[in-house]
């Protein structure tokens, strides 16, 4: 046989090998998704599939995946296909498989009912064998055999029904029980993760290219899962909350739009209980926080980046700002309760909440404004200075306008965050669980002049006020019940309203950023 035909043959073998590996990757992905579906009860493990229960069917697929993965390794090791494996699968894979097999050994031994010492021993032996199998043979065996064996073991257990619908394992000391309908999907998801990775390595022909493909498959899977969780969460709240939010919603008629959930308070008289007072409360909290934090934050950012010399003082401010940024929200709440409440009439009040949220917003505004101001090119400042413009005029008419996009984006995103904060206003603002419409604060009309200090008062600023996140919390602690029709539906509608308020801020913030970035690149 001439050399050219040999390579052609090998190449042909390789393409069918790649095809098989790609199929295995796809099948692993499907198994992962089915496992996830079973875990969240979209599917039942007892559902009949092609004449057998779903758990048995998944077992058969896992078993064949496992056998397939091992044969990929063997085919490569016996040189049936042209791959480029390295001498060893590497220490990272070895440690990972040691951990995996230690856990499997320990769990199996524990489920059989062995004592602590025995399951430890079994786990250690399994881990040691896995380490040896991964680290010492060539990479094609080292990365397929341990992964394929997991799938084979899981597949056998599911197929013969060792783990299945009726299975349970009572964890006596934990006072908990593991059932088949949780264990089966977990086994399937975990095993398919490993087979997917191993098949991806085989697809890449092992070696550096194989590792590249294997890692990419895992990372893509992770990112997809994160996005799926995000979409799932939002969709779930939208589906559950829409009936409440749009209860009694109509377009046309006397008022152009009638949206009772947003315009009513909660009372027995109203046809549809609504969240108006809490919505207004949130709006005022945000306005108050912005009025305090935005000028302060932007001013500080201007001073730090334009006037101050880099030194001890700027360093301290930076540390303090980052420290404030990461301070837990409940600590801000405690601070507001200890510092602000005694100074504003000794009970929970709207203004205490405004300032507490303002303190939280301040570091966010400062950090983003400073970044935006530092991003303004020095050429702008130099050009202005060359024209004989004074420093302050340069800042006012050159630097700040150029930094406005960044500052706006930062402020909007920051506002989105504080609008959903519950912990600080729980301790400082309070309010009723199901306030009537009259409880909505009327800040603008509330100002009064008086002859004694402090001369200007505003009772609605000094009253405990409900806000969207607080009302949701209060409803939950009240056990989702109250003097309204369908409190569950009301609570979900409230959750959706809150989510929408926050997401609208985020959407606007992100859209602004894109708009300005596009303008910048034109």
């Amino acid at each position, binding site marked *: 046989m001439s050399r050219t035909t040999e390579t052609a043959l090998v190449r042909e073998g390789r393409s069918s090998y790649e095809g098989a590996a790609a199929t295995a990757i796809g099948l692993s992905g499907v198994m992962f998704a089915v496992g996830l579906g079973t875990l969240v009860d979209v599917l039942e493990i007892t559902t009949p599939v092609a004449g057998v229960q779903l758990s048995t069917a998944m077992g058969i697929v896992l078993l064949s995946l496992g056998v397939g993965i091992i044969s990929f390794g063997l085919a490569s090791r016996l040189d049936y296909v042209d791959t480029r494996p390295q001498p060893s699968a590497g220490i990272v894979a070895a440690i990972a498989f040691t951990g995996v097999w230690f856990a499997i050994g320990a769990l199996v031994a524990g489920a059989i009912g062995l004592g602590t010492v025995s399951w430890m021993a079994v786990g250690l032996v399994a881990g040691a064998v896995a380490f040896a199998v991964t680290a010492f043979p060539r990479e094609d065996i080292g990365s397929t055999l341990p992964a394929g064996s997991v799938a084979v073991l899981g597949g056998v257990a599911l197929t013969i029904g060792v783990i299945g619908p009726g299975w349970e394992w009572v964890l006596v000391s934990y006072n908990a029980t593991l059932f088949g309908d949780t264990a089966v999907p977990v086994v399937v998801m975990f095993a398919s993760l490993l087979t997917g990775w191993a098949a991806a390595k085989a697809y890449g022909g092992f070696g550096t290219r194989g590792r590249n493909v294997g890692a990419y498959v895992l*990372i893509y899977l992770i990112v997809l899962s*994160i996005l799926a969780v995000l979409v799932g969460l939002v969709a779930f709240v939208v589906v559950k909350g829409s009936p409440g939010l749009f209860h009694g919603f109509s377009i046309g008629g006397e008022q152009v739009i009638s949206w009772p959930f947003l315009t009513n308070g909660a009372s027995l008289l109203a046809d549809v209980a609504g969240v108006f007072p809490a919505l207004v409360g949130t709006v005022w909290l945000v306005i108050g926080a912005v009025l305090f934090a935005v000028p302060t934050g932007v001013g500080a950012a201007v001073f730090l980046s334009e006037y101050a010399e880099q030194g001890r003082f700027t360093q301290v*401010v930076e540390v303090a700002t980052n420290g404030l940024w990461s301070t837990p929200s409940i600590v801000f709440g405690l601070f507001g309760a200890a510092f602000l409440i005694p100074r504003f009439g000794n009970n929970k009040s709207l203004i205490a909440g405004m300032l507490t949220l303002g303190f939280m917003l301040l570091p966010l505004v400062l950090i983003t404004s400073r970044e935006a101001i530092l991003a303004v090119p020095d050429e702008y400042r130099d050009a202005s200075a060359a024209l004989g413009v004074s420093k302050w005029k340069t800042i006012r008419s050159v630097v700040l306008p150029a930094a406005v996009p960044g500052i706006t984006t930062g402020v909007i995103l920051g506002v989105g965050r504080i609008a959903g904060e519950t912990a600080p206003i729980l301790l400082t603002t309070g309010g009723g669980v199901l306030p009537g419409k009259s409880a909505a604060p009327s800040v603008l009309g509330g100002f009064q002049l008086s002859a004694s200090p402090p001369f200007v008062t505003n009772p609605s600023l000094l009253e405990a006020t409900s806000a969207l996140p607080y009302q*949701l919390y209060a409803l939950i602690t009240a056990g989702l019940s109250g003097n309204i029709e369908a409190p569950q539906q009301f609570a979900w509608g409230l959750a959706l309203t809150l989510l929408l308020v926050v997401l609208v801020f985020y959407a606007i913030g992100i859209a602004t950023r894109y708009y300005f970035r596009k303008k910048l690149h034109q």
Partner: protein
Amino acid sequence: MSSHTGLGIQDWRKHVEQRLQRTREFVTETEPAALAIVILSIGSLLTAFGGFLLASSWTAIPFATFLVSTGYGWIRHQALIARTVTFAMTTVTIVTLGLIVVFIFYEAIPAFQYESATVFGVSVPGLGMFTQTRWDAVTEPVRYSLLPMIHGTVMVTAIATLVAAPLGVAAALFIAEIAPPTVRELVKPGIEILAGIPSIVYGFIGFTVINPWTSTEFALNGGSTYLFVGLVVGLMALPTVVSVAEDALTSVPDSMKDGALALGATDWQSMTSITLPAAFSGVSAAVLLGVGRAIGETMAATVMLAGTQAIPDPVTNVFYGYETLTSLIARGYGSSTGVHESALFAAGIVLFVTVLCLSIASQYIEARMRRRLGGAE
């Protein structure tokens, strides 16, 4: 910093003299009217702050004076007043942090005194919170141990970190190195939005969906578990890890990666052998910040946990969730008085100090990394 004290004092004296000299120059150069306005504005602001601290109802007067004098100065001497006012605004962050420390510690004093414990004949205030495990504010003996809640916080944070750290770093790698530009423009805002979902919404879903589900799925008494609170909190800490780690990864100069790629390395090789090691400190800072977020996460924990102040048996029991430091405060504040309320502030101190230390540590790590990469550029 000089270890020689005499030299240090000399340096300091020189520094002060320079400052004085500059101040004198500033005073002589500035118009007397402008100077007067600045002094009036700063003075009235300080007075207003003092009045506010003393909870005086006369605070309005100096505050009004500040507004008027600043407004007048803005019209007549804008540059000077702008500089002064922005300086005053800069100090607000430091002052706020200082006030937080002072007020939380002040409120916690009674609890520290109540929970004194004696070591070697010396009474150490607050030690009793960490040497026994009983928290009971109602039945005798009334004790305020923080250990059960610290245990809860550690459990939740550990599980959350196991979720957020690997997933967060993987997602950051994806955004910074792997994703094609169009995909990146979709994924990045997606993860930002994940950060925007309010914690009480997570808590609400946890309370109405996850808790009942775990209760039946694992045959538990009640559905509160550290396991699932940890998972939820991990999801909430994830965006912090992603965005900070992504910043660190993108700050690695392209020239370093290009070198590896030119030598024929695969993308994954250049990531694991160049980008990740170079950005290692930034990535660990990201994880530290994520841990800080997880420790401070309040509402999801409050709503999902059972609210009993006890350590589960055995201590590794993730199937039962009792209380964390944050949920203790959120649940207990308002219905508590006296030493009990003060003990909540003590819990706040533990939280605040831990998270502040994490924040400072991560800043230190980041600064070191920036210095190192700056040298490589």
